[in-house]
């Protein structure tokens, strides 16, 4: 077998593994979110379906799969159905360069950071199509808000990743992880705390999580851009939201928290708890704070995050050039 065929088989197998990992994670996260929400609110959360409600996400999945796929009367069917597919499809690509362990990676690519950031930007287009294609003014408002929000928060996201790239000198996620040491104080979060905070806030905004969840503001816009979706259309949006959460949390863990590095034995057993720890913090934040108003959201990005990340970048560049 030639090299190319082996590679193709490897990538296909990897995609299959990724998709199953993504589905399992979506199921786990749905359950976790509802349990965390319940306990913060001093109530049990799902409890009936299976012991302690473990089978609840399966029940949800069966329900979503079993519903009728309705296209609203005046909706543009092509755009309407392209949107959920476009929202979920790039996710698989985003997982390709993520190294869960020292040798556990589907694709050996040396521009991993750019690949992930580029493909997660496709989500904006998906939501825009969803809002416009639904022929619903509320969806349109949600989509418009989402575009402005995503565009506004891409910039600080990229600017806060830059210092890490400058420190490492490479775009390869494996190299970035290897450059961080084994012990927690050697991780980049202590060298670049401001970048970490900015990256995390932008990650919350990019994945439309509270307090930045205006595009799908449940109490203002009656579900925003996914008002008209039911059944698996909504299911795809739902899954893509949780999967993007995993992608950005993995990015944060790799860039700032040392990825698969850990005290005794580096491996995926350090990576997964870090990712889940960050996910729990995201959920914690969601259930605590009210929503930020739209113009305040943009103000935070333009007046606070972009200047802060620019200053951080300049300071890092100065320190690096002084030290070398």
């Amino acid at each position, binding site marked *: 077998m030639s090299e190319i065929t082996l590679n193709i088989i490897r990538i296909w197998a990897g995609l299959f593994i990724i998709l199953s990992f993504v589905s399992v994670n979506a199921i786990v996260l749905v359950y976790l979110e509802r349990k965390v929400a319940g306990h913060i609110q001093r109530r049990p959360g799902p409890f009936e379906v299976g012991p302690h409600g473990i089978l609840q996400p399966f029940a949800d999945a069966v329900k979503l799969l079993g519903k009728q796929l309705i296209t609203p009367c005046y909706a543009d069917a092509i755009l309407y159905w392209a949107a959920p597919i476009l929202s979920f499809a790039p996710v698989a690509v985003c997982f390709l360069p993520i190294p869960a362990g020292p040798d556990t990676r589907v694709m050996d690519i040396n521009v991993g950071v750019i690949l992930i950031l580029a493909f997660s930007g496709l989500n904006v287009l998906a939501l825009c199509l969803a809002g416009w294609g639904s022929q619903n003014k509320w969806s349109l408002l949600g989509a418009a808000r989402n575009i402005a929000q995503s565009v506004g928060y891409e910039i600080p996201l990229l600017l806060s990743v830059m210092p890490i790239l400058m420190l490492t000198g490479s775009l390869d996620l494996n190299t970035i992880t290897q450059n961080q040491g084994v012990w927690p104080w050697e991780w980049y979060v202590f060298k670049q705390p401001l970048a970490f905070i900015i990256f995390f806030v932008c990650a919350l905004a990019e994945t439309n999580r509270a307090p930045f969840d205006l595009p799908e503001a449940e*109490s*203002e816009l009656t579900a925003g851009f996914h008002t008209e979706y039911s059944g698996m259309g909504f299911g795809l949006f739902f899954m893509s939201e949780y999967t993007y959460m995993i992608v950005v949390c993995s990015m944060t863990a790799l860039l700032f928290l040392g990825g698969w590095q850990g005290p005794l034995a580096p491996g995926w057993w350090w990576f997964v708890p870090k990712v889940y720890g960050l996910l729990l913090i995201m959920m914690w934040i969601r259930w605590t704070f009210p929503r930020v108003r739209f113009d305040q959201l943009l103000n935070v990005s333009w007046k606070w995050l972009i200047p802060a990340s620019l200053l951080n970048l300049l300071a890092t560049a100065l320190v690096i050039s002084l030290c070398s």
Partner: protein
Amino acid sequence: MSLIGNDILAGKGDFYSRNFQPTPREDTLILNMGPQHPSTHGVLRVMLEIDGEYIIRAEPVIGYVHRMQEKMGERLDYNQYLPNMARVDYLHPLAWNWAFVGAAEKLMGMQVPERAEYIRIITCELNRISSHLLWWGTYLLDLGAFTPILYAFADREKLADILQRITGSRLTFSLYQIGGCKADMDDRFIRETKEFIEYMRSRFPMYKDLVTDNLILRKRVEGIGGITREECRKYGASGPVVRASGIDYDVRRAEPYSVYDRFEFDCPVYEDGDALARYLVRMQEMEQSLKIIEQALKQLPDGEIMAPKVPKKPKPPAGEVYHAVEGGRGKVGVCLISDGSPVPYRVKLRSPSYSNLSLFPSIAGGTLLADAISILGSLDLIVPEIDR
């Protein structure tokens, strides 16, 4: 592909959509914050004309929950009508109870025994706390915080337990009768109320830390929806809405009824008139209610709870009377016209939310959509009360 909505409105739609005269601009969207919306508290429809996110005009459409309460007042006799008064505003039913019963007692010239007055005050103030707690929870739910409502409901459960033992229900309380109260307070009620006062006082700092001082909430609520004194007077608004705009009008002070003049309590008044002022007024009103309950429990006299010789079928003499009380939302009034028969001739219910809602179109112009939600929430509307 044009936005179908505007074309539909031109030809079809319902009466209100057809007669909504938008401003002669080409680039605005006409949107229906429809009868089904998570943030209009109840079945309220607001027709909006928006330009991007800014609201140009807003027009509320009411009547989706009209239940003919006033008509039922012409058909049922005085005692049979009392459960209706609990359902008009299901959050502060004891205020509506009191308004109706007080009106009938005024007509009949009946003096209610002292113990009954104290029971009425204690239960009405407990109900006020419960109403404000629910307002707080749902206001924050509108703003996107999903947890404080459940904390508020945990406190409301305690209140529901206390009031359940005396009234028999957990939501639509109906305790007052013409001439007094239906049931008396026992020692367990007094003890539980005292415990509740302590418990509630320990919860307020948590609410302050979690919500009132929260940066995001402050940004959503400060400076939003300023209402001037003139606008309040123009629309006849009352309650925390006007007290947040600088008008010191509280029915318990301005037209004292029952024995409220024996208690020392403040009516918080703020000058700003924005949503934050309305928020703070209600939070402080809860604390003042606790103060009133404490004083009332100390001064509680013994005695009867019903006036002597109250007929089973009250027949007030012919006449017209108006009685107003301070409800959680404002001035709750009942105008009762009797013609000497066991059934009233006319029951007119003056609901505070109706007048408060009339403020909304004049202050909604030029605000963002998210701010409009915040303003509607801070006005504390109960739509069944608006539609009766």
